[in-house]
């Protein structure tokens, strides 16, 4: 098949009018600390697996809040549950617990 050099790209816009962040709200109920994230990135910087895999708790949380669950969860797949991120979080968020809740929720589904 010939390629003509043009394509249709899906919109990457976050549209808060239609976004559904029910997964985020479920996790929030179990780990209220996640509302206090200040996006400092220390969870990502301390991640043991982060240099080998695309892992970002910070960004995952952020995408979940925007209702982009699939993209968010992909950022936690390589997590080894070591819990170092919990040790460094300046807001005292139990990040490991939040990740456990996310994974548990998805396995159920």
């Amino acid at each position: 098949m010939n390629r003509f050099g043009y394509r249709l790209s899906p919109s990457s816009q976050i549209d808060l009018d239609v976004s559904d962040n029910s997964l985020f709200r479920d996790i929030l109920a179990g780990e209220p600390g996640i509302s206090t994230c200040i996006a400092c990135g220390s969870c990502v910087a301390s991640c043991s697996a982060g240099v080998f895999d695309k892992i970002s708790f910070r960004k995952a949380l952020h995408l979940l809040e925007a209702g982009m669950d699939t993209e968010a969860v992909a950022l936690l797949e390589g997590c080894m549950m070591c819990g170092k991120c919990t040790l460094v979080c300046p807001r005292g968020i139990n990040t490991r617990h939040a990740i456990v809740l996310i994974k548990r929720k998805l396995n159920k589904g």
Partner: protein
Amino acid sequence: MTDRVLIIGGGPAGLEAANQLNLLGYKPVIVEKEDILGGHLAKWDRLFPEGERADTVLYKLIKPVEHTPVYLNTIVEKADKEGNNFRVKLSGGKEEIVSAILVCAGFSLFPAEKKEEYGYGIYNGVITSSDLEKWFKTGKGVNINNPSKVGFVHCVGSRDEKVCNRQCSKVCCVTAVKQACEIREKFPDSEVFCFYMDLRMFGRKYEDLYLKAQNKYRVRFIRGRVSEVSEDFTGKVVIKAEDTLSSKPLKVSLDLVVLMTGMISNNSIEKISGILSLNRAEDGFIEPADTITKMYDSGKEGIFLAGAVTGPKTIPETLSEARASALAIHNYLSKKTIQ
């Protein structure tokens, strides 16, 4: 040499300085361009970080100086040095002979209509932080009717070379957080968003307020400068920004958009610095002789500074400076008298 001191501006700085000068045995005279004392404080409802009523603070500042002479609706037109004194001509043909002048001319809020892309004065759903404060205080001015989604846009007219205001206005971040909490308090079913570039929670208890906004009021903080505001056919206001934390464009439709207008220099500062030959910096505010150890010193003999004429400040900072200026005036006048 007289014991009279002219205070230009009857806002928090001028009122506090007048009180201190009275206590030190001088005779301050306040010149105020508006028809009431109190400056911006008189128009505000509650103050960050703890929500103290502006009325209460203003009363504490005005009560001690109720017998101090005040010229309302008056500005300084001319000031000539005559020996140790200044002969000051005021609008309305009045004249004062004083031995020191304290400049407390304050600041103005950025006129939001200059940022046309934010739609102030074009769309009914777009208001400023001072409109909202007036509505909190009096219920008047703008029409706010049980909004379900409200957005706060930080840095309107601040940190923006396009409107010739590079400076950070410093107090708007925490004001936005305060107002966001108040909106959630008044309208518990509403969703509130803050669009920010940085959140500068520099003062004591400001971070606590921010934390409360996050965990108690569930205000959503979105890092990204709003690029444009438009109105859809239903009358909702649509905001576009980049969500820079996920590197994605973002849009949301809101019932109310509040523009956090910054503190800027104004015509009064320009005019008075012309009359008194004071230096102004690139940001338009008056440049003190020493920005670390002598913020109150204009560098001109007998002329002193206090409050936001030397840049954006909080009220406690302004009041401390007013006291420092009163003491500096006392030191200046008592040294002169001994000579």
